[in-house]
């Protein structure tokens, strides 16, 4: 996988599309996943540079996925960007995220964040 690969894990398809477009605009290749359980499997196969992660997901929640990423040595360089509407949930994360964005997240805001991360990584 390339350095510019981003995984968007968000069950609201419209929001996932916006996040994906913002990351594409920042120069990333993207893959969209709408379900926690599928994300859990996919995270064992790919090496995303950025994961945009919703917390409230079907089957496996974002907090568990964050823990999976943080405990997987393969994903040591993966940046995790939490996208949630619930500030309280963001407070209760068991592992450290690189960035927490509170919804509503604007296209421009996310694109700017992703561009900065992309620059920092290259």
């Amino acid at each position, binding site marked *: 996988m390339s350095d510019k690969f981003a995984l968007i894990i968000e069950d609201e398809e419209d929001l996932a599309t916006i996040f994906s477009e913002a990351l594409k605009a920042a120069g990333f290749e993207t893959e969209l996943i709408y379900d926690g359980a599928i994300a859990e499997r996919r995270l064992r196969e790919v090496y995303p540079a950025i994961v945009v992660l919703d917390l409230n997901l079907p089957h496996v929640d974002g907090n568990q996925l964050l823990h999976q990423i943080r405990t997987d040595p393969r994903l040591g360089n993966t940046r995790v960007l939490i996208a949630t509407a619930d*500030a309280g949930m963001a407070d209760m994360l068991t592992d450290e995220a690189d960035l927490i964005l509170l919804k509503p*997240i604007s296209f421009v805001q996310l*694109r700017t964040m992703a561009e900065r991360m992309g620059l920092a990584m290259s």
Partner: protein
Amino acid sequence: MILTLFYTFYLDISNAKESELLPSLYIGSLAMLGGIALIFLINRYGNGWVASLLFLFLFTFAIVFTSEPEMLLGEYMFYLTIPILMASILVRPWASFVLASLNTLIIALTAQNIQVVLPLPGVLGFYLLALVSWLTAQTMEHALRDLRDLNTQLEQRVQERTTALATANQELINANARLEELDKLKSRFLSIVSHELRTPLSAIQGFAEMLQYEVYGALSPKQHNALARIIANDERLLNLVNDLLDQARIEAGQLSLVNVTFPLQGLISDMESTIRVLVEAKKLYLRIHVADAVPTTLYGDQKRLQQILVNLVNNALKFTQQGGVDVHFYRPDEGHWAVDIVDTGPGIPKEAQNYIFDPFRQIDSSATREHKGFGLGLAIVKQLVTLMGGAVTVISEVGQGSTFTVTLPLISPIQRQ
């Protein structure tokens, strides 16, 4: 009947032993035993018949054993009235007649035994007394019955009240349970509404922005203009929804502060960038003044402080047509920092100053149409400031502009640990 037979028997004995004097110790013991038995029986059975009859016979035997039987017809006859009174009180009013008849029988037997004429005035006296005690006891019984009735009624009323109280109590418990249930529902409702309303609004905003940034291809100036309106209206709707949700969260006690250390300059520049469009559109000025005493780094809920400032400054700009708004950051004392928002607007009438911080209130209904919104901005400001342990006040006079002051406790990073 048996007792009567015994009596005659003993009377005969006592007649036979008339000359012999029975030891007074023996008689005394007998009387004591009788008295104990009497008390025991009254206590044990509470039976008026037993008590009055026993009294009568014990007395009679005592007289017959100790003295001359004729004494019963003479000076001791008076004592026979006692069981009549006892029976009327302890048994039934009419029992006095039974005892009067027994007395008559006793003195008749005695009279026959010692062969004297039955003293008729005595017999009449017994019946007269029986009549009087019957009347007295009946009156007493009526009074007692009334009292008993009253008591029963009282008990009934107490019972009714107790039942009513228990029912009311149960209803309160049920109502409380329903309230708790409602509270849970309210929380659930809040999180659902928060998610369901904001998600589509964010999606609209996101897609409109993508179009605006020509992610999907170039746009004509007219298309850009239409998009700008879509985005502006979506933002307005999003802000209204956020205000409503904030108000609901505050009311439900679910709004908690997320305190962080942040630079004052960040707060100011974020506020300026949010407000700039409105300031430029209305051709007003916005001047920021920061006193040296204000620390460059503050501790608190940056997002909510931002919201407070933007709300107040927005409000000031909304009502100001000429001039502008000055924002002063300063330190009123060692333990506090404060912000004054001074506008050159129309001012707020004194009576309105009492309710401008109430939710859903605006100075007049025409203002709502002119300026739009729910009138929640100041209410949320006040509630947030209160939650932060601070205070918000207003000084204003019609035609002289308004000054809103927010005072907040200054928490140093050392103090918060």
